[in-house]
């Protein structure tokens, strides 16, 4: 069992497991974000819960960070090995005739998503960590000394999407995430050995997921930009 992750099959299995975890996380993330479209109060309450719950902060958040880092590092490691397995390329290669653009460019789409995550972490995560763990303010209030000031999360979210440049970056990044998922969703099932009549019927769902989840993220950013 210990040697499983040293093999090509085992590494792909690990890659798929981290992908499943991240895909579940995306559903949770977009569900919470989407509440900001119709209820400021619900979004604030859910954000405060996620930001202060010890289980979420102490256990789920570190697992998420490890999952994200693992997925990206393993992706680059596998790509480097794959590149090394062909030392001389073809003078003419018509790859578009036998495979999709998405399947051949997972590193490119993944790298764009990674670059986006750096911006996203700078926008929200580092900001949150600084307030909570550097400044020691766990209240989540606009004014920590004034209980009537209300939670700050909704206002901070809308503030981020005032900039059209930031919204454009979000839109482009989520389009690339969609392309990444359009191959990655089914690929993860194949890597864990699931390829039968039940999984084949998942293909329709995978398209809904891969286009729908990023589209919701885009909608949220655009909605707040135009309603601010």
């Amino acid at each position, binding site marked *: 069992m210990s040697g*499983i992750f040293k093999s090509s099959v085992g590494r792909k299995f690990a890659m798929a497991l981290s992908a499943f975890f991240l895909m579940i996380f995306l559903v949770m993330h977009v569900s919470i974000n989407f509440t900001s479209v119709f209820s400021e109060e619900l979004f604030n309450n859910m954000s405060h819960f996620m930001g202060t719950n010890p289980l979420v902060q102490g256990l789920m958040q570190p697992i998420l960070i490890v999952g994200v880092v693992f997925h990206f590092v393993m992706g680059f490691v596998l790509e480097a090995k794959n590149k090394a397995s*062909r030392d001389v390329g073809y003078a003419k290669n018509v790859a578009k*005739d*036998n495979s999709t653009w998405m399947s051949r460019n997972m590193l490119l789409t993944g790298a764009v998503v990674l670059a986006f995550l750096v911006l996203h972490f700078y926008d929200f995560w580092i900001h949150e960590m600084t307030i909570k763990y550097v400044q020691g303010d766990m209240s989540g209030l606009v004014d920590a000394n004034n209980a009537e000031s209300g939670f700050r999360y909704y206002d901070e979210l809308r503030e981020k999407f005032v900039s059209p440049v930031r919204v454009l970056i979000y839109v482009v990044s989520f389009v690339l995430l969609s392309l990444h998922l359009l191959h990655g969703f089914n690929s993860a099932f194949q890597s864990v050995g699931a390829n039968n009549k039940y999984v084949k019927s998942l293909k329709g769902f995978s398209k809904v997921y891969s286009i729908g989840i990023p589209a919701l993220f885009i909608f949220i950013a655009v909605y707040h930009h135009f309603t601010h």
Partner: protein
Amino acid sequence: MMNLTLKIWRQKNANEKGKIVDYPVSGISPDMSFLEMLDVLNQELIEKGKEPVAFDHDCREGICGTCSLYINGRAHGPATKITACQLHMRSFKDGDTIYIEPWRAKAFPVVKDLIVDRSSFDRIQQAGGFISVNTSGNTQDANAIPIEKEHADKAFDAATCIGCGACVASCKNSSAMLFVSAKVSQFALLPQGQVEATDRVMNMVKQMDEEGFGNCTNTGACEVECPKGISLENIARMNREYLTASLKG
């Protein structure tokens, strides 16, 4: 009759660098096979005292898996589910330029011109692509063992793999997963193969990795270019077999 320009990879041996060389050919019949067209070119080269183009071929009827040409950017050429020897010149037009290259993979080093060394496939097969049979005289008749038709059909489909290497050649990662998974599947689906199933998949995957093939990223190019239409289902089955075998230790 067609006049063509061939752009062919020429390489003296494994140690020297190769390059694409242009060869005009004329009077090519659309009814010729692709290999017959190369025979015509070689005859002309020999008559001019030049070195003929080395390429692999044997049965010339799509069975042996020996021919291994990357033609105009596709393994075995533009048509699907055929080998290069089954490709006919009617697939091309008069005046066409045709690129002819060897399979490209570190695990398939070029021997000469269009010939590559595919002995890495042999070593993978030797690592576990067989069943041990008691030949002392009391061997059970294979036909006496009932096998579910679905399994028998899938095992047979997997067994049609001719080991040509088109899967490796067309995969952007030079992965041999489709070949290895076909060999694993043809035994894993049958009771005779299940006795050694654990060792087989572990040893074959280990050998595959040691040979330097890349990782499968499920692009599906191998399935599209496979002359026998070996399904990606086999790769999923091998993944299951491998993960189950790993858990058994």
